[in-house]
């Protein structure tokens, strides 16, 4: 029994960051966040005997996290993948002539905390699935194949969502700097 508990602790320590990233990106600051994380680990331990070593254990736990969050979000029916129309039209509103490369470089002088806050604001405009994909790919440095395993989305869809999410975030970043530059 002690061995089981020790193994369970190791499993949690190894996967908690990835689980937290998925839960936070999928649900934001939802009050049910803690319950969701507990639910994810409850499912993990319940279904652990069914794990067939077809992928990394962390990928399997991330898969459980993603589907649990998705089921949770479906109850509230938010837009999971649709980007709001005003965001799609944002590029047309920004003139890059107004933004100099120096203005962007000045952004690097901001503190990490300030930059994190800007990113949070930019991220808030993205639907949960896009936010999660961006984090898994760029922050957690997972491969497209691993993201495909976790989300169950086809490879082409993952690539296309990542492309659109990056584009929207970049446009919003430029918009942010164009406002500050003016």
């Amino acid at each position, binding site marked *: 029994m002690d061995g089981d508990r020790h193994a369970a602790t190791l499993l949690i320590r190894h996967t908690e960051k990835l689980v937290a990233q998925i839960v936070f990106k999928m649900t934001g600051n939802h009050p049910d966040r803690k319950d969701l994380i507990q639910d994810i680990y409850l499912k993990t331990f319940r279904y652990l005997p069914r794990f067939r070593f077809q992928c990394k254990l962390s990928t399997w736990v991330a898969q459980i996290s993603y589907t649990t969050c998705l089921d949770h979000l479906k109850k509230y029916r938010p837009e999971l993948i649709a980007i709001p129309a005003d965001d799609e039209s944002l590029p047309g509103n920004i003139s890059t002539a107004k933004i100099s490369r120096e203005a962007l470089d000045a952004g690097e002088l901001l503190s990490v905390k300030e930059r994190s806050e800007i990113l949070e604001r930019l991220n808030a405009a993205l639907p949960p699935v896009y936010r999660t994909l961006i984090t898994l790919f760029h922050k957690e440095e997972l491969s497209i194949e691993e993201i495909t395993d976790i989300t169950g989305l086809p490879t082409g869809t993952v690539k296309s969502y990542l492309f659109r999410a990056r584009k929207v975030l970049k446009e919003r*970043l430029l918009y942010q700097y164009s406002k500050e530059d003016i």
Partner: protein
Amino acid sequence: MSTAHLNEEQLQDYALTGITHPADREHLSVCNHCQVQLRAYQMLYNQIQEAETPLVDLETKDLIPDQLTNFNSDDRKESRYLSGIFFGAVVLLIAVTLVCWNSISWVFAGITPLSIIIGLLLLSGVLIMQLTEVYSTYRKKLSALYMELTAT
């Protein structure tokens, strides 16, 4: 030198991997529009990278369910049942053979040493295949666990 701006896909890739095409590098050196777009993508990737990982404000022990032992004992119970059934079947087969030896001994009467050797070879082949399968599964599991543990 190309005067056409780089497309979004090229900008996204170059921000990730660096500029690989000489003509695009040349264009970027003179085009403010593309420089700004590329810099924006680079900044975005950097900001995502350096963003803090959210913390799970829960104790590890709170995430381990109390019924953990029950989950595992269910699993062990199932494997114990399977072993029991297999062992019982073997014992039953041996018992039936011993009890009915007189009536079934004719089955083995015509067996030549050559057929015994062929039978043993076939059996050994099947056993070796099974053992190889078990060993490769074991190695696969060990390497998966090793990868997990070294990553921690």
